[in-house]
Every structure is written in C-alpha cells, then in structure tokens.
C-alpha cells in the first residue's frame, strides 16, 4: 500500500521553532522524508543599512543582528574597525570586553537551556534558567544601561567605567550560578527522561564536518576541539586559562554536555578576569571626531567565538567616514541549511524542535 506524504510547515508560528523561521517538512506518518529550511521572515537589510552609516551610527545597530547574544557583534565590529584604523586598545578595556563577552555567553547558554528543555516539555528548567539569566541581565543593566542591547563595546575601548562594586557583585553572582549549575545537572542533564530523548538523535559525525564549515558545539560535540578563542586568539584569551570541552558521540546529548561544560568554563574565565583586571587605566582611546573618523581603503575579516560558533565580520573601508561594505557570517546560516536539512530526514516530527535547539539556530543572524 502506498502511504500518503503530507507537507507541513513547521513554523514560523509554532512553539517548537527557535525563532521566526520555518522548516517545510514532508511527512510520512510522523517520519520526515524531506526537510527544507525557509528564511526571509526577519530580513532587515543590515549590510545595506550599514553602507550609508558612519561608524557611530552603524555601531548602534550592529548589536541588533543577533538578539540572544548581541555582544559578539559589538566585539566584532569594534575589532574590525580597530584593525582597519590602527587603534590599540588598553589592557583594562580588553579585560572588560572579555568580561562582557563571557557574561553574554553565559546568558546565551542559559537561554539555550530554556529552549532545549522546553523542546522536550521540561518547562521547569526553562523557568529557572531564564530567571538566572535575568540576574546576568541585571548586571548588564548596571554596567551598560541596557538589558538586552548593550551598545557598550565601541571601537577604541568600552563606553563606560565599571560601576562601584561591580566586580564584587559579579563574583557573588558567579558563586550563585556555580551552585545553580549543579541543580541543573540533577534536573536536566542527568535526567533519565532527557537522556532517553537526546541520546542518539541528530547525530553529526566524521571528518566531513570540518570541510563543510560547521563550528561551535557541532564540532566540539563530535570530538574536534575547535574554538576560536584558542585557535585564533583575540583580545586577551591567550593569557587566560580555560579548557575546550569535547564529546565524541555527536548527538544532541553530546552537544548538551559540551554546553554544560562550557558554562563552567565561562565562570572560570570570569573569575580569572576579576582577579587579573588592572585597577587603573584608560578604558577608551582618544578617537577622531566622528565625522573625521575614516576607514582606510583596506579590508579585513575578524571572527569571535560566540555561544553557538564562529561569528565573523568582513569589513572594507573606502577612505570615507562611511563603511564601504560589511558582511556578517554567523554560524546559524550554515547550520540551518546544510546541516539541519539532511539531519532531519528520517527523524520523527517530535525531534525537530530538539535538533534545532541543539544546533543553536538563531534566525535573526541568518538573515540579518
């Protein structure tokens, strides 16, 4: 008997999708026979908008490229402009940048944990972890004035001095989070029902993953210790001690374990930053007046390791105060198309949300 294939759209209006995007699924029963990713719901034309903006104008919108973790965008933008314009950043500003990036990474991992646990119906973890993420956002608010969008890392340094007692409060928060991570281990990572759902699902394996441009937890979950913080150090990451956690299974559970270890590594890095940060020092270099802040006729590519993988900016100047061209390469684009589509074939419908969350697909960054 021939079984009927039905085509459904998983998204964009769907609780099991990681943002405003959709996956077109051909289903036979509940088994997926073909998957196609559809994007374009969030396209705002950032790369075009930036072509007619000066540096300070472009700076205010780059953080909006990726919503769950905006700070790698600011860091990338600042690094690219500094490299083109030849600006050196003080040590103290670099430490503050590392601190902001790691706090953002921790927040993004907690947000991921809410999505991943929600995708298997374990809402309790999400409720807890979003609360804990909010405590990080509170610190961000003290530091930068904004909860979600910070606009803090500006070319030449950072925009504000640390508030009084900030490092002590951060240190206390880290102690708290360290305890909470054990609670998450018990409720989520070591939960037999989550293991039953996640082990052996969405398996990525083999040497081929290196050639196809995947990054982040996808690589580290199948045994390759690739991390830009180690392989291509930026800021002060070559002076800080941290491990790159890896797993070999390559499935959803392996990626979850990698993220679990990364949260602890972020805490470790933050503690080092608190201990090593110089007490005094300029946080901002003297910059030209913003109408005279021009970029030379050169181009560059910078990349940082975001919570989901390699996040890169290509930037070219043309001697004017505008940025001639800026291209964004996020990890989600590759993961959402060339990884997700083949990975979903043969899976059950119930595993779609699980796999999408585990790849860390973030639609605003796919489409800019």
């Amino acid at each position, binding site marked *: 008997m021939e079984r009927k294939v*039905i085509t*459904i759209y998983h998204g964009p209006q*769907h*609780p*099991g999708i990681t943002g405003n995007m959709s996956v077109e699924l051909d*289903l036979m029963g*509940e088994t997926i026979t073909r998957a196609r990713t559809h994007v374009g719901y969030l396209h705002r034309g950032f790369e075009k908008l930036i072509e007619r903006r000066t540096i300070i104008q472009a700076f205010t919108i780059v953080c909006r490229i990726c919503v769950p973790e905006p700070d790698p965008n600011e860091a990338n933008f600042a690094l690219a402009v500094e490299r083109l314009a030849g600006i050196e950043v003080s040590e103290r500003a670099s430490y503050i940048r590392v601190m902001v990036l790691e706090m953002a990474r921790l927040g993004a991992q907690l947000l991921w944990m809410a999505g991943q*646990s*929600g*995708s*298997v*119906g*374990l*809402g*309790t973890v999400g*409720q*807890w972890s979003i*609360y804990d993420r909010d405590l990080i956002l509170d610190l961000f608010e003290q530091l930068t004035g904004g909860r979600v969008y910070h606009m803090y890392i500006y070319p030449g340094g950072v925009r504000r001095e640390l508030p009084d007692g900030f490092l002590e409060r951060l240190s206390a928060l880290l102690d708290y989070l360290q305890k909470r991570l054990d609670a998450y281990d018990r*409720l989520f990572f070591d*939960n037999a*029902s*989550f293991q*039953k*759902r996640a082990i052996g699902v969405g398996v990525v394996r083999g040497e081929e993953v290196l050639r196809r441009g995947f990054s982040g937890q996808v690589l580290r979950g199948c045994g390759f210790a690739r991390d830009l913080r180690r392989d291509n150090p930026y800021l002060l990451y070559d002076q800080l001690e941290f491990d790159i956690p890896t797993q070999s299974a390559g499935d959803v559970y392996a990626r979850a374990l990698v993220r679990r270890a990364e949260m602890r590594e972020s805490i470790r890095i933050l503690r080092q930053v608190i201990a090593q940060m110089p007490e005094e020092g300029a946080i901002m270099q003297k910059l030209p007046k913003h109408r005279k802040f021009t970029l030379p006729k050169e181009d560059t590519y910078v990349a940082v390791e975001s919570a989901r993988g390699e996040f890169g900016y290509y930037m070219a100047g043309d001697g004017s105060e505008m940025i001639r061209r800026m291209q964004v390469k996020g990890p989600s684009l590759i993961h959402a198309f060339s990884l997700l589509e083949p990975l979903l074939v043969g899976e*059950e*419908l*119930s*595993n*779609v*949300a699980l796999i999408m969350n585990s790849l860390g697909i973030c639609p605003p960054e796919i489409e800019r």
Partner: protein
Amino acid sequence: MLLLDLLLMLLIAYGFGFLYYGLYRNLSARVHGRFGPSLAQSFSDSIKLFVKEESTTFGWMFYLGPVIMASGAVLNVLFIPFLNQGESLQGLSSYGNLIVVLYLMVLGPLGNALGVGSSGNPFGVMGVTRGLTRLLALELPFYLAAIGVMIDAGSADFGIIMQAQSTQSNMFAHPLLFAAAFISFLGFMGKSPFDVVGAPQEVYSGPATEFSGKFLALLMSQSAMFSFAKLLLMVNLFWGGADHLGELVAKTFVLFVAATFIGSVYARFSTVQSVEFLIRIPTLLGIVGLALL
C-alpha cells in the same frame, strides 16, 4: 431524589475539576519558583471562552466531537460512586460496574477523533493518532490492575471492591498492581513523560488545534471533570474509597499533588518511547502482580 443526587455529583466534579486544574497551575508555578495565577483562573478562562463572539466550525461533525467527549466524561462521573457508604453520592453505580467505567473511558478519545477528523488539520489528526496509540498502551497495564482488583474482590461492583479494602487498602495489599495502575494513571492525566498528545513544540495543541471559543471551553470543562473522574477511580480501586466528602477531597488531593510533582520534573517521551515504556515496565508489573494474587 436520584436526579438531585446526580446533579450534585456533576456539580462537585465540575467544581473540583476546575479547582484542581487551578491548583495544578499553582503548584507547578511554585515548582517553577513563581506565584502563578489565582485558583479560579481556569474557571475564568472557561467562562471567557464560552462568551467568545466567534467559534470557527467545520460542519456538524465538528460540533459532535466535543459533545461526545463531554458526555463520556459526564457518564464516567455518574457511574463512579463518590463515597463507599451511605445512600447519597452513589450515582448510577448500582446500575453499572467497573467494566462499564473502563469502557466509557475510551468514549472521549473516540469522540475527539471524530470531531478533529472533520476539521482536516494535519496537526489535529496527528495528535489524535498519537492519543489513540498511547491509549492502547495505557489501557493494557490499567486493565491488568483493574482485573487484579476485581479478582481480589470477587466482583466488578464498586461497592464490593471498596468493602473488600476495609481492612487493608489495595495499595498495600497489591503494591505491584498499584504501581502499574499509577504509571498508567499519569498517562491518562496527560502528565510528563507521557504528554505526547498535545505537545506544543511538536504538534501545536494536538487535537485541540482547531478548537476555538465555546468548543474549547467544552473541551476544558470535560477534561476537568474527566480528570476528577480518574482521580475518583484510583481512590476507589486502590485506596478504599472515602467515608465522607472530606476524606474524598483529601485522598484525591494527595493523588493529584503526586501526579503534578512527578509531571513537572520529567521530559516528554516521544510517542514510540512512551508506548514502549508503558508496554514494558507497568505491564510487566501488572502481570507479576496478577501472578502473585
């Protein structure tokens, strides 16, 4: 007099059903670390849904689905005695027995299938398919446990089953049967890890996807009453029923809280996994329990 009694039973089931649903939201909110809505929130929800100005329909079969489900729930409530003694709140239990109740429990899902099928929504159909698949696996251990209880009491009549437990309740006399029935009861209540039917991250709301306004209100009311009926059934079969209304509330409350807390710390199985699990562990427990009788 009987009519008044039946009406009272329905009112109690309706009121406590919604109260327990509100309690469920409150208790799980406490597990989440927040306050949660007021106890009467789900009651407000159902009133609001009843007075919605529009409810989309897909023909007369779509009307019938929720009605059949609701009648299943109502009959279930009426055929299960609330108390183990006295004349009042016995309902129609003298006209039917456990077998009738077990049969009626299947009516709801079938009615749902009829209604959802006529809407033509693929997610609704998927939810119904999941529900029926899971139902087959749920019934096996529950029926085994029920058969064990019936053999033990030597009758399928609720009164006799409850009387047989006057010295020792079935929960302690036959712990394996109780375990089998309790796991399957978690599934009947739609708790994790067996909540595959309306899994929002997978199939929207499953069977309820196309239901709006008063249809959804009817679904909510019937599910509140039905869950109270299931609590009653468990209390009657394994905890020896209740002498008076206070004891009934206490016993159902304990059972309900246990189910809620278990449900909030487990991840959802996929359909195949939950069927496999139910067929393996609780069924095995049930068979061993039967053998030990």
